[in-house]
């Protein structure tokens, strides 16, 4: 065995192997970028506020003023929601890609977003909640819709005690299509054009509804969910070696996959209820994060969370300012910029690994 000749070294550069040393560097860089993006988001918009005044407002040194109100009560909750939803979607996307062993998995492949849209549209059309519609009843409807989709996908994907990645994807896609069709059917037959606008906003996602009193739930869910998933980093890594590989290393793959799917779906449902279905963050950020720090989840999940937060905060700043005072659904921007970025990522991926 000692005489084994080294196989010819591949032409590929060793740079495709990010080590542990890069984690601190990448995390620090992302944190700095996020801080800058947050400051920028608080300062820029239809009203420009000097950075000094933004800092004064944040540190509580500012006297009550319109600036202070804009920073603290309008922009800050929105920025925090962006951080929470961006981080949540990126973490969930990362985990789901490992769970179904498919690089194209994202939080919405598995039917959650179409469930949310269906729920929201039902609330709209049926007029549930009366005057409270937009602030409380819509998120509640979206959450209920996500849960319904989740239960449906879960039931369809399970066969006996096993739940394989491919079945999960197939069930998710099928449920997605059916719910999307039903949503459209309900909208059309209700014949109320003003609902279309609201439904459109919901299905592309936006952070415009952010308020201090609606932040608690998504923030708590993000912190709890990410904490649990981070603790599950080792079994998530085991899944990367395939079902058989994970089983022979001691993981009960069927139970683990089912449990993590439920957790990931719940986190997604809460995020979607708060912001609508912001696409692409959960698909794109995990890939970028993997390129930066490699596949092991203990390093990957924190970097994905920071990257997702950064991506959504920047995208939302764009959504508010590009066509100001018009608020573009932020999902439109993430898809417009994310699509090309994603293609670029795929092109520079090392060959050999399957899609």
């Amino acid at each position, binding site marked *: 065995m000692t005489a084994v000749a080294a196989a010819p070294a591949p032409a590929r550069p060793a740079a495709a192997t990010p080590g542990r040393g890069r984690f601190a560097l990448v995390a620090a860089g992302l944190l700095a970028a996020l801080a800058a993006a947050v400051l920028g988001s608080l300062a820029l918009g239809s009203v420009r506020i000097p950075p000094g005044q933004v800092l004064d407002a944040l540190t509580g040194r500012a006297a009550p003023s319109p600036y202070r109100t804009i920073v603290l009560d309008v922009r800050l909750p929105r920025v925090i929601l962006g951080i929470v939803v961006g981080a949540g979607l990126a973490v969930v996307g990362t985990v789901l890609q490992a769970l179904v062993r498919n690089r194209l998995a994202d939080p919405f492949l598995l039917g959650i977003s179409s469930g949310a849209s269906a729920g929201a549209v039902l609330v709209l059309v049926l007029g549930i909640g009366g005057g409270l519609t937009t602030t409380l009843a819509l998120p509640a409807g979206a959450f209920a819709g996500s849960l319904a989709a989740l239960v449906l996908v879960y039931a369809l994907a399970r066969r006996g005690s096993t739940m394989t990645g491919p079945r999960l994807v197939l069930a998710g896609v099928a449920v997605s299509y059916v719910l999307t069709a039903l949503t459209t059917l309900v909208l059309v037959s209700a014949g109320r054009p003003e609902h279309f606008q609201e439904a459109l906003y919901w299905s592309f996602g936006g952070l415009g509804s952010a308020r201090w009193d609606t932040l608690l739930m998504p923030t708590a869910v993000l912190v709890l969910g990410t904490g649990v998933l981070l603790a599950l980093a080792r079994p998530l890594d085991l899944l990367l070696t395939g079902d058989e590989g994970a089983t022979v290393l001691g993981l*009960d793959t069927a139970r683990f996959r089912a449990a993590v799917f439920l957790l990931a779906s719940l986190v997604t449902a809460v995020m979607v209820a708060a912001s609508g279905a912001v696409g692409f963050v959960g698909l794109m950020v995990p890939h970028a994060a993997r390129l930066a720090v490699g596949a092991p989840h203990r390093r990957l999940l924190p970097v994905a969370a920071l990257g997702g937060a950064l991506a959504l905060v920047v995208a939302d700043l764009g959504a508010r300012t590009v066509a100001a005072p018009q608020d573009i659904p932020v999902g439109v921007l993430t898809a417009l910029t994310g699509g090309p970025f994603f293609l670029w990522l795929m092109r520079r991926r090392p060959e050999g690994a399957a899609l």
Partner: protein
Amino acid sequence: MTGLRIEGLSYEHRLRDAHLTARPGETVGLIGPNGSGKTTLLRCVYGTLAPTAGRALLDGADLRALGPKARARRVATVPQDSAVDFELTVRELVALGRSPHKRFWEGDTAADRDRADAALARVGLADLADRPYPTLSGGERQRALVARALVQEPELLVLDEPTNHLDIRHQIDVLGLVRTLGTTTLLAIHDLNLAAAHCDRLYVLESGRVVTGGTPAEVLTPELLAAVYGVEADVVPHPRTGTPTVLYLPSPPGDQKTSSI
């Protein structure tokens, strides 16, 4: 050291009432044509299939009853399907072999990484520790998986066709490596000459049944090869090592003899 005893192991129609033993420290090979039940038997041992009858006992403990994690502490497996998604490095993949010995939330310690490096050195892959696993060649992957099995510190090593897709040099390397470990080993293997050279005893499977077992010299006979594989062959002692060596004869034109099932 630990021995394996398989009693009446069955899985649907694919494996029927198999009995075999691997004594402590022995390397036992399973041979037989495609579809004869080798992989099914191994899967029932390493736990991805639940046998429909019978038991696999490791030092008297029923492997099925152990559960995945306790089983993985005692049995290390090099499965046939070794695809890995995403770019884990070779060292990261090998270090995952420590998982059965850790709580699920525990990370890798410096000791784990040292262990992984030592195992990689042992299989001759020390230089490739930081390479992404998917970029390795077939032979390198197989040896990396053996290294992963090593850090598992198993009592029983199970390998399913460990030499598949390898060139002859790497086939000999991998089997020679397995031999030097001294761990009780059960492996399925296609190449009869490699089986004869590297296994203490062989069991022959045909249509889901163990038809015979014994030392390579006892098992590899022209009669058995004709009956089980449907080939005509001579078995001669290797001129330098003396191990039984199978020399196949081309089948005469028109004689499409197949298995005697």
